[in-house]
């Protein structure tokens, strides 16, 4: 029932029979197989006899039949003697569908349209390719999330290759910017362009990453901070080949670092201005860390065991240390207490006494046990001295007020009483001369008291000037 294909008897040692890939010859008019090799029989699961009884449509998934029809329709437009490559799907006898890379060539024949086909199973290649695409997509997504771009440039070329994310970091679409060296220099911040105009090779060692942080000008004119990790790559014979690197947008981190720096500077200045000392007591290790800002704005930090003879507590005035120590631990034992305050004196190395106020916050565990105490000690010597001065002033003012209200006003009211008496009774009760005599005496008393006030005032002023001078 099938035509005999005697004209395709091939020698046993023909390459057709020993090819590692399935091969066949078919009739393009009937789509019937005329000859198949051993590898086709092995891979597709059909015996040679079965192959010769089926058509090309039988080794195609149903949904791909139209692809085959189109290929057959255009078969005569192919150049003779040239193997055409196509990627299609084939179906084995057991129904397994797999990707195939086809190469075919028309065979000259005066009666029929014959074609020789080589079919290469690319299942593994396709899986590798799919995995590569998946991996590449993931890498792109990761780069985008991390704002991390990649670039490379051959040392003998002016043009760099940029990844999509690198374009994105600079604010450009890939088609709208050509990363020539000149263009890249222009998108660097003017103050950072020396990084490119200097000879990079002076800074790079083969295989070692070099890191740079600098600013760039993006497409919309804004300034961004980036970090670049660059390395020099050698070729197979040890010569320099190309440089490659990653670029990461670190603008947010730089802004945060700047804010942190400003905040630290403010904090240091505030500490310096308020003459404060910060301390941090770790109850677990029984160690205390204390720091203060010294005159040049530098922070001085000391960490040591928390004992009475530590460098700090050892400075507390001997008359105050036991009270301070006991009071502090009493407050710690109160599990409801979170804030505390202590006042005491420090005796400095030069012998001077300073008054301080120590306020602190206690961090406690679930059972209320103290874990950490953070405090701030402020030198209140000046404030305290001013308060003492104010108290002394108040005492003087009270003395003066008393003198005015009693000692001065007493003889004054006597004069007023005498004049009232004289006005109402004339010399009936007291003679004019006696009245004048008593008034003179009262006036002398007033004068004495006024001298007394002046003396007190001068003494106070002298004391104050003495205090200021000290």
């Amino acid at each position, binding site marked *: 029932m099938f035509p005999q294909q005697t004209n395709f008897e091939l020698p046993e040692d023909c390459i057709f029979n020993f090819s590692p890939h399935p091969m066949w010859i078919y009739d393009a008019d009937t789509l019937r197989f005329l000859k198949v090799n051993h590898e086709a029989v092995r891979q597709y699961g059909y015996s040679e006899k079965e192959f010769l009884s089926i058509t090309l449509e039988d080794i195609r998934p149903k949904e791909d039949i139209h692809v085959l029809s189109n290929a057959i329709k255009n078969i005569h437009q192919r150049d003779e003697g040239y193997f055409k490559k196509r990627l299609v799907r084939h179906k084995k006898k057991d129904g397994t569908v797999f990707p195939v890379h086809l190469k075919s060539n028309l065979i000259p024949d005066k009666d029929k349209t014959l074609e020789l086909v080589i079919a290469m199973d690319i299942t593994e290649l396709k899986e590798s390719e799919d995995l590569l695409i998946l991996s590449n997509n993931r890498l792109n997504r990761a780069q985008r999330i991390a704002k991390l771009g990649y670039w490379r440039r051959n040392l003998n070329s002016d043009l760099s290759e940029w990844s999509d994310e690198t374009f994105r970091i600079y604010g450009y679409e890939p088609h709208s910017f050509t990363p020539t060296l000149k263009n890249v220099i222009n998108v660097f911040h003017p103050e950072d362009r020396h990084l490119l105009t200097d000879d990079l090779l002076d800074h790079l060692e083969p295989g070692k990453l070099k890191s740079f942080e600098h600013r760039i000008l993006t497409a919309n004119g804004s300034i961004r901070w980036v970090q670049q990790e660059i390395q020099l790559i050698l070729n197979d014979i040890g010569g320099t080949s190309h440089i490659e690197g990653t670029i990461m947008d670190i603008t947010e981190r730089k802004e945060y670092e700047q804010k942190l720096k400003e905040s630290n500077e403010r904090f240091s200045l505030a500490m310096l201005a308020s003459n404060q000392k910060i301390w941090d007591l770790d109850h677990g290790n029984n160690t205390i860390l204390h720091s203060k800002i010294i005159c040049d704005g530098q922070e001085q930090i000391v960490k040591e065991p928390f004992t009475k003879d530590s460098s700090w507590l050892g400075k507390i005035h001997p008359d105050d240390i036991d009270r301070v120590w006991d009071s502090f631990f009493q407050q710690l034992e109160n599990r409801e207490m979170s804030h505390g305050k202590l006042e005491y004196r420090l005796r400095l190395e030069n012998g001077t006494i300073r008054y301080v106020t120590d306020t602190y916050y206690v961090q406690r565990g679930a059972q209320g046990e103290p874990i950490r105490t953070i405090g701030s000690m402020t030198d209140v010597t000046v404030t305290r001295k001013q308060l003492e001065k104010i108290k002394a002033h108040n005492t003087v003012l009270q003395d003066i007020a008393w003198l005015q*209200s*009693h000692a001065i*006003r007493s003889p004054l009211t006597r004069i007023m*009483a*005498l004049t*009232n008496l004289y006005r*109402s009774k004339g010399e009936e009760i007291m003679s004019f001369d006696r009245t004048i005599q008593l008034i003179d005496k009262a006036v002398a008393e007033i004068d004495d008291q006024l001298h007394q006030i002046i003396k007190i005032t001068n003494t106070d002023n002298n004391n104050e000037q003495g205090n200021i001078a000290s």
Partner: protein
Amino acid sequence: MNKEILLVDDDAVTNFVNQTIMESKFPGIPIKLFYNGSVAMQYILKNTDKNFLVFLDLNMPVMSGWEFLKALEGKKAELNIEIHILTSSIDPGDQEHAAKFPLVSSFLVKPLDETILEGILHKIVKNKM
């Protein structure tokens, strides 16, 4: 009931002038002079049957006006006494402090105002102190 006016002040001239004014306004009411709070208090405690109108200075030697008031504070029920502070002090603090003593009826500033004095003495005479 025996009534007496006590002038308690260490200033002799003030006592003399005030005594003169009172005698001329209300002759017949005995007036006694004391130069500190201590002697005045002793006299009062020895004569609890008498009815006293006291004009009390604050700033005095031996026993001040304040000490005098404090000493008599717990004896109000035993005594018939009305005390008017008569002082040269114009310190509002003294006036506020005086108001805390129940025995004190008023706070007068020297020199003694005759109109105010007449008001106080009229009241006493009317009530037949």
